[in-house]
């Protein structure tokens, strides 16, 4: 059993697409709550959230902002809590805000896990054999991004200490930064020409390029893929047949369907199960030593 991050990148991509999609587009309160709780658990497990205090504070801030701002703009709902300058602040509006913010936080957490797992190499892997050139272009782009960031800072320093940056007015500042971009553009043309020469010198496009496929498609990946597809379809079907809707106005009403809820819980727990098994094996093997 491998680590979750080592699964085929296409499978990983579909997994996150479905989890995040379901969290965002189904209004169902139960699904969103499950998504939120498990996404945060996963984020902690995968060491994505390390500074608990800082991150939870951020999420709390997001929650409060959205929950409080929704009733300020939406005044529908039956239960009025209090009035602010003749506009009603209703419980339902607040609940809607809370529901929405929970899904936002869940999506944020899932995205964080996604960006940690999907490294540049994995993104290139998605392109596979068919689109190898596209994959190489993606790799080259990714390799150049940090280089350009570094060069931009260097060029900015060089311009500043050669007196080329003027920050007297906003207009002058923009002009100065435009000059830096022009320097960076010239640099990038030259660099890319040199990289092309280097690629030619190493026989690029002479022969069909071997793809280094690291591992064959394993049972785990197939299982995850099937589960993802099946569960997603199930949730979509239930959602389209109005078995999973939640409405807040005029009063709070929600559906609860056992099957999609349980299935979705299983889906979101897939990364957790991989991680738990990995940790268990590690501790067991360490205990033996």
């Amino acid at each position, binding site marked *: 059993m491998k680590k979750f991050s080592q699964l085929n990148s296409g499978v990983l991509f579909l997994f996150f697409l479905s989890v995040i999609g379901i969290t965002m587009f189904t209004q169902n309160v139960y699904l969103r709550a499950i998504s939120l709780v498990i996404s945060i658990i996963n984020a902690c497990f995968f060491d994505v959230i390390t500074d608990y205090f800082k991150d939870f504070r951020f999420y709390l801030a997001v929650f409060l902002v959205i929950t409080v701002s929704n009733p300020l703009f939406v005044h529908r709902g039956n239960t009025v809590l209090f009035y602010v300058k003749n506009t009603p602040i209703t419980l339902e509006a607040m609940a809607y805000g809370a529901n929405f913010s929970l899904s936002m936080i869940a999506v944020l957490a899932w995205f964080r896990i996604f960006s940690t797992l999907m490294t540049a190499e994995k993104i290139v892997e998605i392109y596979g054999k068919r689109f190898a050139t596209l994959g190489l272009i993606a790799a080259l782009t990714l390799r150049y991004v940090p280089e350009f960031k570094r060069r931009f800072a260097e060029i900015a320093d060089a311009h500043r200490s050669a007196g080329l940056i003027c920050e007297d007015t906003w207009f002058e500042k923009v002009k100065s930064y435009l000059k830096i971009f022009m320097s960076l553009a010239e640099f990038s043309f030259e660099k890319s020409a*040199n990289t092309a020469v280097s690629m030619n010198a190493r026989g690029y496009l002479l022969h069909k390029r071997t793809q280094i496929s690291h591992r064959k498609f394993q049972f785990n990946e197939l299982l995850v893929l099937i589960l993802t597809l099946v569960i997603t379809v199930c949730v979509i079907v239930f959602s389209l047949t109005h078995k999973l809707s939640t409405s807040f106005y005029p009063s709070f009403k929600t559906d609860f369907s056992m099957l999609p809820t349980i299935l979705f819980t299983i889906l979101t727990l897939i990364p957790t199960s991989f991680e738990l098994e990995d940790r268990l094996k590690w501790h067991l093997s360490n205990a033996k030593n």
Partner: protein
Amino acid sequence: MAFIECEKLNFSYPYAGDKSNGFALHDIDFSLEQGDFLLICGTSGSGKSTLLRLLKPEISPNGRLDGKIIYAGKFLNDLPKIASAAEIGYVFQDPNAAYVNEKVYSELAFLPQNLGLSPETIELRIAEICAFFGLESIIGSDICSLSGGQKQLVNLAAVMTAYPKLLILDEPTSQLDPISAERFSDIVLRIRREMGTTIIISEHNTEKFFNFADKILYLENGHQLAFDDPSLFVKKAANHDFLPTSAKLFSSFKLDNCPAFTTSSAMNFVRGHYKNAACDQFIESKNHLNGDAVKVENAYFSYTRRGKDVIDSLDFNADFGRIHAICGANGSGKTTLFKLISGLKTLRDGKIYIDGKRISSYKSGALYRNLIASLPQDPHDIFICESVKEDISTSPDGEKYDFETVKTFCKRLNISEKLLDLHPYDLSGGEIQRAALVKLLLLEPKILLLDEPTKGLDKRCKRQLSTLLKELAAEGKAVIFITHDMDFIAETADDVTLIFGGKAVSSLPVRQFIMQNSVYTTAASLIGRGYFDETMTDSELISSAVSRKNERGDGDE
């Protein structure tokens, strides 16, 4: 049968009139056996890169080629493309441009992938090359996070994955600091020793390779002036700039059997032929500078709040009318000190005075108007226009300078009219540096800062730069530069400061600095120590050695 042969090679670029008679290379003639090590020397523009590129068909320049290049008994042009990619490896000068992938592993796999080798073979090759180069600790790293020296090693390793028969290197260490250059050179020599690869390398700094070369090829203006083994070359040569110090010493004695071209063998030579001379003790001259140009007092700086102090209780003084060199290892804080002096970063604690005033008292931009001008490591950074002429004749405010003034500066810095119409990226390393200096000098700065100005320059350009800096100091400007190049410091600087661990551990007049040190010193100083008074530069060593030639009566060997 020779492995590589060039017979009466003549090459001209399509745009004739660029070089003499339009030819970039005239009558190049040499041959190498398999496993030979050829060192190509010559100033910038002498045709070294052109010749090297002609030996690699995929990147040969367009132009007219007369004569023959023979590789392993066949014409080079008849070599199948796959063989050319696999058997001839080429390492470029710029470590930052050559790599294609993000990770080291992928980069090492690039060439074998292009050759269509099986995945198993590719993995095996990578494992072998990784072991040879010692890249295990960085195999999964991002290449952009590596140092210049590590990047160049990765570039070399990426080429070696095909186990080429011929390895061509075009000034591979010119952009590297001395420690990385040393490490790179060791690996190249090890490749030659253990793999039997034929190696052709061009370098300005020949200190490391000269001793190990089988043959030296000397080019000037596209002409082949010499092709000999090192001993014969040294005997015939007339103190060429690019020779290592030991070779220059032996050359001036026209020895028949030269001992090895290393500093220690030169020291042995001196020991055996000259009488010991007591060296004058230096008078302790601390605080000889008053810091009227730049004064740094008790400075502290770190890049992040919890990070280590990169500048830790540092004091520094630089005066007007003097040239001050700053040296130190990578990571010692030299570049940070430069950024602090040029106002790009702010101190956490301590004071900096520029021209007598606190640096914080200068309003935004005022520091760079007629006060400080800084030449970056890559002079291209400060060019933004399509032509050099347009760029240097426009002031930062957008106004045009008086063209006569511009022309005077150009003449003084040896920039011909032809160069002015070119695009900045079409100029060579020395040319763009001089053009950048014109641009900065037109701002009439009082303090000139230069960040590693000798990177990639040949000795002739370095001498020109040295002369220019001395003229600027004589005009009353303060010149401060960072460098690793001790020979340049010996030729140019008045004062030297050594930075270590964020502190200035030594700040002395140049002669005292060089004579007292054993690592931050010149080869000439080490060779002449105890025998020739106050020898700092190669020319001082040679003239002292020659003038005392008959000391023991057997100066002539």
